């Protein structure tokens, strides 16, 4: 089975009965040869982008959102941290709790617990949003601080709610794809595990039925998956591996892909080394410096650093590939600051690696 057998995925996936089996990632990897194609990835309904802080999660989430929109899907990008990073990566001012359109077929939303709570009450209990709910929200906030579950549940619940939302007239889903910029590390796991945790805690009440379908959505690998982010550094790699193991054993969420971000993937060759050696060699130094407009001596450090980073990238790529059953895709380092230009470059890289 090659990428050609999967067509472009221009329409949203049909709503089929839940299927709890799909070829394991190991099998797919063996068949597809280290690859998952972009179309398959974009057929998911919800993709959680997870990884240690600083691994470029927001940029990768934004890149995935751009790719989804390019493939003709209506995409919602959700920022769980609400620090505004995701909106910035999409070239937008900070979004709010209501989805903000950033370009054709692409909206961004920032989650905030209190607003989630109000919306929740509004939808399920018809508590009007205009009512001053401050005391109630405060009490909720307070309980949620101490008792695990409710707050995480609101996060997952809002995501699941957006997944289920239909256009009022046509009845088609409002979003084809939802990409989620997860909170760092452990928090993301409690979000994903929240429905399961709530199910052990809540044995009755209205909430149980809701939690059950949310849990089913999260644990259906055809609809929901995780994209892990790592950097070619020791701790981010270890954390990605550990996060994968815990996800596999814990919340039962499928992991489709691991991205090694800021990969330095251009090797230093013998020709590069020869040129540098000749440039800085004593016999040509003066004339070279004059022609180039400055002494080339520091260039050796640039080449050394490049070689070191290339080796480091290769080493961590091997480590990740050895430990993770799903494809690991390097995305090259982009020098620019976070913003739409960088996101586009990352999206192009991701798309070419997944083609």
């Amino acid at each position, binding site marked *: 089975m090659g990428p050609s057998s999967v067509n472009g995925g221009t329409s949203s996936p049909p709503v089929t009965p839940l299927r709890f089996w799909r070829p394991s990632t190991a099998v797919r990897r063996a068949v597809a040869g280290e690859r998952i194609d972009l179309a398959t990835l974009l057929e998911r309904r919800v993709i959680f982008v997870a990884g240690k*802080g600083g691994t470029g999660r927001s940029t990768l989430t934004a890149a995935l959102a751009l790719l989804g929109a390019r493939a003709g899907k209506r995409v919602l990008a959700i920022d769980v941290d609400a620090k505004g990073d995701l909106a910035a990566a999409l070239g937008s001012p900070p979004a709010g709790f209501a989805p903000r359109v950033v370009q054709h077929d692409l909206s961004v939303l920032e989650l905030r617990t209190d607003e989630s709570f109000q919306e929740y009450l509004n939808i399920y209990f018809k508590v009007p949003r205009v009512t001053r709910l401050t*005391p109630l929200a405060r009490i909720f906030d307070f309980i949620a601080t101490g008792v695990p579950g409710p707050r995480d549940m609101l996060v997952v619940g809002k995501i699941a709610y957006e997944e289920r939302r239909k256009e009022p007239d046509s009845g088609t889903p409002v979003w084809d794809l939802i990409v989620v910029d997860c909170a760092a590390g452990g928090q993301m796991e409690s979000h994903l595990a929240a429905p399961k945790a709530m199910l052990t805690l809540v044995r009755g009440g209205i909430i149980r039925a809701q939690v059950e379908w949310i849990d089913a959505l999260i644990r259906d690998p055809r609809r929901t998956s995780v994209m892990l982010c790592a950097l070619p550094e020791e701790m981010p790699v270890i954390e990605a591996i550990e996060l994968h193991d815990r996800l596999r054993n814990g919340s039962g969420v499928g992991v489709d892909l691991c991205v090694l971000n800021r990969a330095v993937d251009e090797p230093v060759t013998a020709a590069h080394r020869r040129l540098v050696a000749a440039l800085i060699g004593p016999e040509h130094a003066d004339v070279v410096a004059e022609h180039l407009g400055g002494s080339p001596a*520091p*260039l050796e450090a*640039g080449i050394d650093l490049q070689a070191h980073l290339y080796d480091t990238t290769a080493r961590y790529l091997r480590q990740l590939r050895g430990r993770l059953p799903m494809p690991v895709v390097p995305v090259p380092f982009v020098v620019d600051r976070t913003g739409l230009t960088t996101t586009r470059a990352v999206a192009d890289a991701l798309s070419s690696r997944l083609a």
Partner: protein
Amino acid sequence: MSAIESTFVPERRRSVRSETVGLGRLLGPLDVVICCGSGGVGKTTVSAALGMAIAAAEDKRVLVLTVDPARRLATALGIKGIGADPVRIPKARLRRAGITINGELEAAMLDMKQAWDRMIERYSPDRATAQRILRNPLYQRITDSFVGSHEYAAIEALYELHDAREYDCIVVDTPPSRDALDFLEAPTRLTDYVGSRLLSLLSGGPSRFGFRAMNYAAAPFLRLADRLLGAEVLAEVSEFVQQLQMLYEGIQGRARSVYRLLRSPQTGFVVVTTLEHGPFTEAEFFCAKLSEFKMPLRAMVVNRVLPDLFRDPGGVAAATTLVEDPKVAAWLSGELQMKVSADTARFVGRTFLTRNTLAQREARQLSKLSRLGEVPIVRMPLFSEEVSELEGLVRIAKAL
């Protein structure tokens, strides 16, 4: 030693404001050194190296209390593993790695669960209460997910160790929180939570906060919560918070003592950061908060700094010509009498210019640190902290 190490590691030039005494000597007289910063900046490694530098500078018994999740610090320290009980790092082993320790160096790993359990046992009015709380299913989950619970556990462990006076100096590697500030706010947050009126209100039982009046306000919530979650959950929660309230006095008293310790002149904070936008902004914010809380910032360690070499104007000019001049490859081929392709020339120029862009950005960030005033700033060059064995750690300790 590989080429890259010889290029980047020996750079031991000191900071913007140069400080001649090493950090080991500077921090050595303190009882407690707390390393803070966002996750992924190399805090654990810096903490271990600081402990080493202090033990080298002073004849002191030094403990490094770490929260290292990957346990690679144990490997780096040349010991099998670090547990909740302190392990001594053999002097001979350190000497072989190139550092002579005057004092003693020990390392211990923070055990979150143990720290919490002990806390519950200590503050419970009686054993039965402690047992009830420890057995409560909600307890375990709260210790995992209460905001700042890891930070609080770390502070508790630190306080206990400090109180026991077995060590002259304790270096604490703070947990990798989402927000470095969690560490400072953890004791207040816990006290506020346990002592809160809302909690007593939810616990349903009579309390010194006069629950009758409050209960009226909470009635709509309780009704709603009942519908939402079912009555059992609420009963469980309420039972648990009732138990938790019995600990209030103890926790409040401890929080006060902890803040006294954190503000003591014998305590020092070291903020660790990289020059990346996120961690750097957080570090700046953290420094501001420290002064607001009147907690002493003693030094700043800026990790993974690109060498100044990458800002060399001559290098930039040469690299730019290599990238932009279409005839440069032909000229080089003639002059150097070797075949130079345009791609090769561009690659050599480009690799330098990429790092130059980053080095300039870093320099701008570094210059912002002058706002901090007279705090010593130590720059750690890139890669020196990719530590997998004792020699690497020693190298950092010496650079500090």
